[in-house]
């Protein structure tokens, strides 16, 4: 019986997560099934893109140090596989087979000191360093903590292995106990959103949760729970892949990766301060517009200056409605009198002569 109860507690310490991501490329999808232990994990997953599919199995030892990564890529008329391993002494080995030729050992002598593998374009393998260095907790506390790592990076779909110095930096909290974490490798730099379990939620330009799929029950740490996926119809997923779509998504990828000037009306408010935090953590140039900061979206005071050069406004300023009416209940009772009212319209011009018209509020409610 004691054996049974230790088995039960070992199982109880695990969290099972079923993950799905959709990429900006209309045919890129990633999915993974992961079992997260107290200091290790196992996972298997798959990716599908236009030209090939990938499947992989990952196993770590204690402290989320990679033990084994097995990868296979397959396209029209070709298949490649890689067995990457790290033994208890820290020695890496890699055996690659491609296009029907004999399997060959790759030179991985430069990997000494690496603890993690990083499967190219896979949104799952960012998790191990984040967990080992407890970066979600740092981000939640608002600490900026930087960790330098060397990874065994697997190029996809070639399945060659390279030494990859990488840098992870905790930036700040994300929703639901998650974290915004900066990632840099060579010239590449981005901000990745992780969930409370240290799993990637949004990887700009690569992966984000597919529309209409949400985990209906979120497992708590150290409790066993199965995750069900709720699917609702997603017309866009069913839409055919056309060249126009390719162009659109390529453009969108550029937009998502660019640093943008974004103004937040009500940027110090209940929702606004969170919006400002998220945008800043994602690397955007953010202007929080508030009365305390000299910008009044009702009167228009300071608005022109605040909007100069701004590409997008996020309007979460609802306080003006409450302010003008003296409180929710008053507004509530005065409801029948409500009308759209006079709208304050202001123009601002950015450097390229683009006019932004803002019609913020229903003055005099």
């Amino acid at each position, binding site marked *: 019986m004691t054996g049974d109860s230790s088995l039960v507690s070992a199982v109880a310490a695990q969290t099972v997560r079923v993950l799905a991501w959709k990429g900006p490329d209309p045919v890129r999808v990633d999915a993974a099934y992961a079992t997260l232990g107290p200091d290790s994990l196992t996972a298997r997953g798959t990716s599908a893109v236009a030209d090939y599919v990938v499947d992989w199995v990952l196993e770590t030892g204690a402290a989320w140090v990679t033990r084994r990564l097995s990868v296979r890529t397959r396209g029209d008329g070709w298949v490649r596989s890689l067995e990457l391993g790290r033994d208890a002494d820290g020695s890496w080995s890699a055996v690659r087979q491609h296009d029907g030729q004999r399997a060959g050992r790759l030179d991985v002598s430069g990997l000494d000191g690496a603890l993690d593998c990083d499967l190219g374009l896979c949104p799952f393998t960012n998790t191990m360093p984040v967990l080992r260095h407890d970066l979600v907790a740092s981000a939640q506390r608002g600490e900026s903590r930087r960790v330098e790592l060397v990874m065994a990076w697997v190029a996809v779909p070639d399945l060659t292995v390279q030494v990859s110095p990488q840098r992870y930096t905790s930036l700040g*909290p*994300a*929703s*639901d*106990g998650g974290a915004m974490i900066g990632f840099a490798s060579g010239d590449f730099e981005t901000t990745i*959103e992780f969930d409370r379990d240290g799993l990637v939620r*949004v990887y700009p330009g690569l992966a*984000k949760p597919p*529309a*209409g799929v*949400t985990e*209906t029950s*979120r497992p708590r740490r150290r409790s066993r729970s199965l995750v069900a996926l709720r699917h*609702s*119809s997603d*017309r866009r997923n069913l839409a055919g892949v056309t060249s126009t779509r390719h162009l*659109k998504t390529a453009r*969108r990828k550029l*937009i*998502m990766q*660019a640093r*943008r000037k*974004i103004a937040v009306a009500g940027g110090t408010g*209940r*929702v606004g301060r*969170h*919006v400002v*935090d*998220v*945008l800043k953590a*994602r690397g*955007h140039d953010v202007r929080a517009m508030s009365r305390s900061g000299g910008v009044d979206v009702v009167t228009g005071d300071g608005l022109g200056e605040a909007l100069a050069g701004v590409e*997008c*406004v*996020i*309007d*979460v300023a*609802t306080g003006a*409605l*409450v302010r003008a009416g003296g*409180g*929710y*209940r008053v*507004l*509530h*009772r005065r*409801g*029948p009198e*409500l*009308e*759209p*009212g006079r709208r304050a319209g202001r123009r601002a011009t950015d450097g390229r002569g683009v*006019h*932004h*018209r*803002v*019609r913020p*509020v*229903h003055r005099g*409610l």
Partner: protein
Amino acid sequence: MVVVSIIGCDRFTAGYSAAKLAHEQAMLSGPIPVRILRAAQFHEFVAQLVEWGRQGEVSYVPKMRTQLVAAATVAPALADLAYDPESAPAPGSAGAPIPEIAGRREENLVDMANLLAARRGDPVKIEGVSDPADPDRRLYETGGLLPGPDATLAGPTFEEWLDSTS
């Protein structure tokens, strides 16, 4: 532009919700493309209602069915719309409903107000009221504020949120 609005605002004839619908329409009538995200009531709203309704030892809060959501959960969704405009269809285009975001489960506002007071050790007595002068009172009480089937649902629940903020 990205605008936050309220789930169900198009059903109401009065009050804050109707004002938000007017806000949506004013935005949509302008020349700049607009993406709207309708959110449920925020967790933070419960404490505000308890304060507004406080009269001595009793706080009168409206009877309301609501699928409370954390403001911090709504914020990334708004940010997504700012730089990923195609993640939401243009409002008014055929068959494109305005996206909604809400908490994972429906709550009763009076129960949540009681839970909040208990957690804070606030001795206030919560009383659910229905304002007969409000033409929309039935909507609050019969689910007019609840999300549709395609809404994004995301935690934490009000109770989890209280745990994490207290």
